[in-house]
Structure formats: structure tokens, C-alpha cells
């Protein structure tokens, strides 16, 4: 239910901001105006929404519309001209397994996104190795007792093909292993929010999500190879499951789009709101 609340809060917030923009409440003199459309990754969506809120306060004449569906939607929307910024969890200007590169697009690093393996609170296991995860996601391990838990069937929940979370998770947590389970305990969901709801409501389930979404006590993050999924462990290099989040633009960004990306990359935002959302500043990674 939490994500629903979050969603409605975000909707109300953006509606409020929009009306504030329309009436032009802020008095600051400002030449920047226009509309920025952001589309793509749901993992980056909380960051984009927060940045949009702050940016619009500074530049009331700029309207930002953000929506999330799946990472590959981002660069695709930019390619089609539907969006100015395509949020993507991988560098879409390069080839990655499963996806061709998008010609002529520039990848602007905006954040470091840690991902974590999550399980339903009914699961007793709190550490999984790469090999165990590989076994679970490829369908070789189907019972929690094989990885040190209760004698219960494992319910695997995964994101659909095209999700950036899935691309990164597969590459880093599963060591490139396949997700090819088509049996009775396998379910696909369409977004990070759906993933959270599904894992929270399904006993004995396992899934993966970015760290930002983990809150409350109905899901818990498990350790990976004995390392806890925390911001500190990512920065120190102990925890490997993370990736840069990118804002893809058609060529170098210009005008208000450039200003917005620069705001997101600015020290003020990176060290402030971005950290609070459990993302990691890009400058923290060496």
C-alpha cells in the first residue's frame, strides 16, 4: 500500500507544482522557460520527481513532466522525439547484452543506483551467494531449504525484458546468468512499484529492486555474498550490484534540458536530496 501512497503524494505534489507554475507565484527573474519531458526507468523515477520539484521552484516557468515505464523506453522515447530526456539504468549509447546502442544519443551520468535482492518477510534466509542466486533464477534451486531456509517452494518474481533493473541485476548479481524460469512459481511484473507489492504480498517470494524502494517491514533486503546492501558498502567497493543511472539526450543537451541535467548533477542536489533518496552521488565512485 505504501507505493500507492507515494504515488498519490507524487501526483498531488506535481499537480500543486504545476498550478504554482501556472500562476507564476515565485517572483525570481528568470529567462528559462519551456517544457521538459522525462521518460524511462522506474528505478530513477523517485530521483527525477524530486529533482523536478526543486528545479521548478528555482525556475517556475519550466514545466517538467516525468513518467516511468522501463529503462529501454527512455532512449526510445528520445529517439522518437516524445521525450527530451530518457532515463536509463545503463549507458544506452553503447551496446549492452540484449540491446543495440542508440545512435546519436549522449549519456549523462546522474546517479549511482544500488540494487538489492529482496525477499518476503516470511523468508528466513538473509544471505545469498552469486551461485545460489544463479541457481534460483535459472530454476535449478526451487526450495528455500537448499539455501538454508525453511522447506518451502521459492517463488521467483522478476521484471520483464527491457527493464534496466533486470539488465543490471542479471549482469552483476547473477554474474551474467540467465533468468529462464517458466514454471509454476515464476511471475513477471512491469515496474519497481509492482515488484515491491508483489514481493510484499507473496509469501516465500524473492525479487530485486533498487535500494530507494526498500522501506517498511513487509520486504527485506538480503546480503549478497555476505555483504549488506548499503550505501556505504557500495562506496567502499564491497557491494557490487549497482550501476550508473543515465539521462539520455539527443546529442548534447541544450537550453532548459541542459540546465535541468546540470541541476541534477550539481553538488547541492547530489549531496542533498539524492542522498536522502538512498541514491549515491556520482562523485563518490572512483
Amino acid at each position, binding site marked *: 500500500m505504501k507505493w500507492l501512497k507515494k504515488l498519490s503524494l507524487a501526483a498531488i505534489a506535481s499537480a500543486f507544482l504545476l498550478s504554482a507554475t501556472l500562476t507564476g507565484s515565485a517572483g525570481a527573474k528568470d529567462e528559462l522557460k519551456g517544457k521538459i519531458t522525462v521518460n524511462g526507468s522506474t528505478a530513477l523515477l523517485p530521483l527525477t520527481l524530486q529533482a523536478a520539484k526543486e528545479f521548478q521552484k528555482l525556475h517556475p516557468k519550466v514545466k517538467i513532466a516525468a513518467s516511468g515505464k522501463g529503462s529501454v523506453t527512455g532512449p526510445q522515447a528520445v529517439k522518437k522525439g516524445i521525450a527530451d530526456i530518457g532515463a536509463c539504468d545503463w549507458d544506452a549509447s553503447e551496446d549492452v547484452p540484449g540491446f543495440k546502442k542508440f545512435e546519436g544519443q549522449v549519456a549523462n551520468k546522474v546517479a549511482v543506483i544500488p540494487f538489492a535482492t529482496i525477499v518476503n518477510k516470511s523468508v528466513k534466509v538473509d544471505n545469498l551467494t552469486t551461485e545460489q542466486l544463479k541457481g534460483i533464477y535459472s530454476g535449478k534451486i526451487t526450495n528455500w531449504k537448499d539455501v538454508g531456509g525453511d522447506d518451502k517452494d521459492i517463488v521467483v518474481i522478476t521484471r520483464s525484458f*527491457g527493464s534496466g533493473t533486470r539488465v543490471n541485476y542479471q549482469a552483476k548479481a547473477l554474474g551474467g546468468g540467465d533468468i529462464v524460469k*517458466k514454471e509454476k512459481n515464476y511471475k513477471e511484473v512491469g515496474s519497481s512499484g509492482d515488484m515491491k507489492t508483489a514481493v510484499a504480498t*507473496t509469501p516465500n517470494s524473492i525479487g530485486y529492486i533498487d535500494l530507494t524502494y526498500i522501506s517498511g517491514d513487509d520486504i527485506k533486503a538480503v546480503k549478497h555474498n555476505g555483504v549488506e546492501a548499503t550505501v556505504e558498502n557500495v562506496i567502499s567497493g564491497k557491494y557490487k550490484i549497482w550501476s550508473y543511472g543515465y539521462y539520455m539526450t539527443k546529442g548534447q543537451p541544450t537550453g532548459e534540458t541542459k540546465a535541468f541535467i546540470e541541476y541534477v548533477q550539481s553538488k547541492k542536489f547530489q549531496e542533498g536530496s539524492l542522498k536522502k533518496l538512498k541514491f549515491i552521488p556520482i562523485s563518490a565512485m572512483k
Partner: protein
Amino acid sequence: MNISAHKAAREAGAELHPRHRWNLTSRSARARVVNWLFKYYFLFSILALCLVLAMVIFFIGKTAMLTFQEVTLAEFFFSFDWTPEEGRFGAALFIVNTLSLTVLTLIIAVPLSLGMAILIAEIAPAWLKKFVSPLLDLLVGIPSIVYGYLGLTVLLPLLRELSGEGLGDGLLAAALVLTVMILPTISRISEDAISAVPRKYRDASYALGATRLQTTFKVVLPAAGRGIVAAIILGMTRAIGETMAVVMVIGNTPQLAKSLFAPTSVLTSNIVMQISNVDFDSTWNYSLHLMAFLLLLISFVLILIIRIIGRKGGA
């Protein structure tokens, strides 16, 4: 107003004061213009509707046909292997699943909603009628995502408990959610059809000594047959095209549903899960369009079949 009435009015007008006559002719002229306008307005509306429909079919069909540049007809319709990321586009499993889901939904929903319709129209006292009918109208207005969410958070845990399965997603969960969604549609429209059966039929039946059961099933229901068939058609088209609620409880795994509790996928849920994640100019995208086109055709054919059955049974 027919021609002779116009004529009579004109003749009468000739006798009257010029001012009155002017008034009358202007009145009939105005009537003629208004009639003309209305006729063409309605004609235009129908044509606009046909145009939109034709365009939908044409554009989806056009994109859909591009699939066959790389995929053979036989593979698409008869292969059960849907692995688009590796270039295998077998949509047969979605077609079979969609049909099974629709049939399963109708098997659950039709008896229930007909029972409700008969209760409201024939048996219930006035106060109950006044209570149930608006309630059903209210149910029709609830957005499907709400049903989906309730299915996800209320129905699925219940099904897990009952079946002992780990997940509970599957055809049964989807069919139950759809049943709740189409129940009000079918029962409200059937109820109207049953209520429209003339009272004298029932009186005649009772006069012959029939019981209420006999009267209802042998006289009233056959007489209301066409309306009931129309109600089922409407319910079925909603069930076959419904996406948001289904996608939340069906599991979205591209495999043939071998049991009621196996996570599976139907045409609608697969389209909505994948369409935004694929390249615009790819066979994957085209084949999703082909699936949409197919959905259009399936519902069209089903409607035709039921219309034909309805014509035979209901007359």
C-alpha cells in the same frame, strides 16, 4: 409531418393574412432545414464512426502484416514458443490462453449473473430491487485497476491458502476478477430484457397451472433470449479485452496454462507488458501489433457466432 399535412398547411395559409402566411412558410422551411440538418448530422456521425473503426483496423493491420517479413504464418499461429529476445515468435499459447480465460469467465459469470437478473426481475420484493439495482450500476463504474489491485491483495492470498500453491496467479484468479467485473454488465442488461417480457405471458402461463419455476424457465427466459444474448456479448467483449485487472493477477509468464493456478499470459496482458519495452522497428513490435489485430478478429468472430446463435434461439 408528412407531405399531405404540409400541403394542407400551405393551402390553409393561402387563405390567411399575408403576415400569417409568411410565418407559416417560414415555419415549414425551418422544419425542412432542421430535418435536413438532422438527417445529415446522424449520417455524418455514423460515417465518422465507421471511418475511425476502419482506420484502427487498417493501421493495426498494416503494422501487423510486417511481422511476416521474418516470421512464418505457421510459426506465429501454431508454435507455443514465445521467446522474442531470441527471435522465436510463437503466439499460439496466448491465443489458446485468451480463449480459455474467456470461456472460463463465462462459465462462472453467466449462471451467476443470470441468477441475479432473474432474482431482481422476477422474485425480489420491491425494496430489495431498489437496493440491488443501483448497487450493480455502481459496480460497473469502478475502474478495472481497482479490481486488479483487490485481486492482487485480497484474492491471491486467499487462492494461495485454498490451493496450497506458492503463487496463486493464473487463469482462475483472472477469471474470478473478470467475473466480478462483468457480472453487473450481464445481470443489469438481462434484467432489463426479462422485465420487458409482457406481463400477459406470465399470466397465461400461470393460468395454465405452471409454477413460477416453469414460468421463468419455459416462458420468460426464452422470450427474453435475445436481450440476454446481447448482455452476454457485452460481458464477453469486456472480458476478452480487459487488460489492467488481468495483468495484475495472471502472472505474466509466456507459457500455456496447463492448470488453473499456473502463471500464464493472455494476448492483452502480454501486449501491455512488452509493448513499451521493444524497439519501434522490430519484428517483436510488429508481432505485438499482430496480436492486437488478432484480438480484434477474435472478439469480432465471437460476437458473430453468438449473434447467429441468438438469432436461432431467441426469435
